[in-house]
């Protein structure tokens, strides 16, 4: 026998931590509202039964105004889990119970996991758990998930409650109307089978869109309609707005429950308050944000540098070793010139990528990211973006794929599409290898500033395009800004390292699969030509290589880029860079030679500083990698995915051309 349980709760209640403790699965944990958007599943065994655990998004209510809320509601309504574990933040009981009441309305079998009781006590709350259970009519399990306290109790209560009947909630001021509606609703057998009729009745009074549709398609709608109108008129006379009246009723009941189940001595989190005094200050907020980002980048480059050197050395040595010991055959060349050269040039960037993910995970986990949204709201608005857009944009420095997914916290569709469309311009860590190689070869003294200028260029272009898109495509203003600012966290190293590892291992996976396949493909196309197999000598001999398939492809594309003076090898690298931007460097590794020194020498022959800078800019802008295009399609549809590729190509071409023209004029 297998039971299904769902985890739900407000953002920042520690839901992900509880999910991990229950299932032992590692997954992404963040700290700004709404980070767990995907449906995550795990399993645990208890008392001889198997439990499937589904992690639902962090939400405040079930009216389904955002995708997150829709996902959660649809799941509970349609898949009817055996138990819904509602994670409630004990330090913020009143607001959290609002969702609990709505879950009970839905007819779900709810168990409350009362998390963060240590924090509540620190703030001076004392909660009578027995009393709370009694008043809510559902089991309540006190927990401190971050310290692994209460997990076993929770499993035990889940086990005990799994065959229980759900409780019912009574709204005294509305009960007569609800009963009247249920009387008619229950005449539709199909409706009664699929839904909790009390939920349908309450939502009908609230004028909920989703439920209105369901009711409209019912065969009893003709009978229901006059009663609905009558009730609606009566309530509107009494309360002005029926929807808000029910919400107030919920809060009234919650307030009574909280008052009788808690003793409050007052007090607040002084450290969070002090930090916010500075971090959200109108003059200091933005400089502090920039400082943090600057620190993150510095950390990334400085800490990773020696490790990259070691990896570069190892791959250089490996290549020489293979060549020395395996002779001149095709296998030796595939290994040394293809795989080791290509992968080596990409894996050198594992250390900075790990460092960057670590820095951003730290910022996220600390609770700072929502403050970033706060201080940037006004500026973002000027460019037609929403305050919350800053979070996906900053995340984009790590990788655009999770960044684009994190845009789901934007409720407004236009805001969300706009934020996603400009996200690829935020220079992800995959583009870093290209900058480092070129900046090192052509601007050695100013390499740091040149790399930084790429990031700045990306941000500036993203803002300009956001402004233009907002004016031309998404007319109107960004939606209103509403966001919870959770208390700051002491760094939870387990979360931060887990998070860093999860993201970095994605890069390793990519290196092992897509990038690997990419460099092998480039090698194959280099040693084969229209005339057939030419042997590994092609990579050593320019004249031979000129007859290969890569050369054919490169020469076909070269005229397009002739105004920028890039040779066919560089052009081919761009072509393969679509697979993943790291492949640009991987391809160059195969075509120009292994190791940083050799590559640098080859590049200085093929580019000058101006064409190199234009090339860097082109790589920054030209099109999102396959994975990013895929996630754009998944999030906002094929049309926008195609649009993002096309505008990227056009913009990249224009910018690279301008850099070349003005560069030549000035220097």
């Amino acid at each position, binding site marked *: 026998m297998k039971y299904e349980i769902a985890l739900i709760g407000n953002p920042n209640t520690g839901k992900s931590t509880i999910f991990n403790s229950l299932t032992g699965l590692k997954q992404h944990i963040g700290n700004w509202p709404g980070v767990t958007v995907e449906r995550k599943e795990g399993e645990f065994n208890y008392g001889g039964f198997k439990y499937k655990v589904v992690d639902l998004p962090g939400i*405040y*209510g079930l*009216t389904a*105004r955002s995708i997150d809320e829709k996902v959660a509601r649809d799941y509970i309504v349609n898949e009817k889990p055996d138990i819904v574990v509602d994670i409630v933040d004990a*330090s*913020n*009981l*009143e*607001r959290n119970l*609002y*969702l609990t009441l709505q879950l009970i309305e839905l007819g779900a079998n709810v168990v409350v996991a009362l998390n963060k009781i240590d924090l509540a006590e620190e*703030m001076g709350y004392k909660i009578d758990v027995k009393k709370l259970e009694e008043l809510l009519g559902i089991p309540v399990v006190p927990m401190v998930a971050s310290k692994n306290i209460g997990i076993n109790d929770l499993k035990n209560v889940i086990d005990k409650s799994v065959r229980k009947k759900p409780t019912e909630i009574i709204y005294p001021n509305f009960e007569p109307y609800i009963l009247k509606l249920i009387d008619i609703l229950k005449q539709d057998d199909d409706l009664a089978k699929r839904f909790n009729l009390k939920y349908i009745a309450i939502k009908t009074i609230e004028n909920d869109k989703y439920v209105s549709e369901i009711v409209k398609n019912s065969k009893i709608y003709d009978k229901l309609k006059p009663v609905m109108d009558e009730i609606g008129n009566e309530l509107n006379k009494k309360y002005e707005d029926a*929807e*808000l009246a029910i*919400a*107030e009723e919920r*809060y009234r009941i919650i307030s009574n429950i909280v008052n009788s189940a808690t003793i409050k001595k007052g007090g*607040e989190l002084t450290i969070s*308050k002090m930090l*916010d005094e500075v971090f*959200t*200050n*109108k003059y200091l907020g933005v400089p502090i944000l920039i400082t943090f980002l600057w620190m993150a980048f510095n950390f990334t480059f400085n800490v990773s540098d020696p490790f990259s050197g070691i990896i570069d050395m190892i791959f250089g040595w490996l290549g020489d070793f293979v060549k020395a010991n395996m002779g001149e055959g095709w296998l030796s060349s595939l290994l040394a010139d293809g795989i080791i050269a290509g992968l080596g040039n990409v894996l050198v960037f594992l250390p900075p990528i790990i460092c960057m993910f670590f820095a951003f995970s730290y910022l996220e986990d600390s609770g700072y990211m*929502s403050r970033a*949204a*706060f*201080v940037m*709201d*006004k500026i973002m*608005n000027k460019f037609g973006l929403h*305050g919350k857009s800053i979070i996906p944009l900053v995340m984009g420095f790590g990788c655009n794929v999770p960044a684009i997914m994190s845009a789901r916290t934007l*409720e407004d569709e236009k805001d969300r599409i706009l934020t996603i469309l400009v996200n690829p311009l935020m220079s992800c860590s995959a583009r870093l290898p290209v900058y480092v190689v070129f900046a090192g070869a052509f601007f050695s003294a100013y390499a740091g500033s040149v790399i930084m200028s790429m990031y700045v260029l990306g941000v500036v272009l993203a803002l300009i395009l956001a402004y233009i898109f907002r004016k031309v495509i998404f007319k109107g*203003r960004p*939606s*209103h*800004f*509403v*966001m*919870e*600012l*959770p208390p700051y966290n002491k760094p939870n190293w387990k979360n931060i390292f887990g998070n860093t590892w999860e993201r970095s291992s994605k890069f390793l996976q990519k290196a092992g699969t897509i990038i690997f396949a990419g460099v092998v493909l480039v090698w194959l196309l280099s040693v084969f030509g229209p005339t057939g197999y030419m042997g590994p000598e092609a990579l050593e001999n320019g004249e031979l290589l000129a007859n290969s398939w890569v050369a054919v492809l490169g020469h076909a594309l070269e005229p397009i880029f002739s105004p920028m003076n890039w040779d066919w090898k560089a052009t081919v690298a761009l072509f393969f860079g679509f697979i993943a931007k790291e492949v640009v460097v991987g391809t160059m590794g195969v075509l120009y030679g292994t190791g940083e020194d050799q590559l640098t020498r080859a590049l200085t022959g093929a580019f000058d500083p101006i064409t190199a800078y234009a090339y860097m800019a082109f790589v920054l802008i030209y099109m999102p990698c396959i994975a990013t295009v895929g996630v754009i399609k998944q999030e906002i549809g094929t049309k926008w995915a195609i649009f993002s590729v096309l505008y990227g190509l056009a913009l990249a071409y224009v910018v690279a051309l301008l850099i070349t023209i003005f560069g030549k004029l000035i220097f």
Partner: protein
Amino acid sequence: MYPMAFTREGDKIIIKDLNGGQGIVGRLVDMGLNVGSEAVVVRNQNTGPLIVSVKGSNIALGRGLAMKIFVDNVR
């Protein structure tokens, strides 16, 4: 009754009226800012968003939105 945007830091207020369309009003209510709830203005710098503390959590609200939320002072 006056817009929340005109409050000062440290003011204790009670929410009197919510405007700005059904979607946003519902969201405010979900986050604990229902009509009748008491809140404390934590941040209002006469520019950029505000922060109010309500039901134990800090909520940031855009200035445009704060013009559409009407409040009264609580003595």
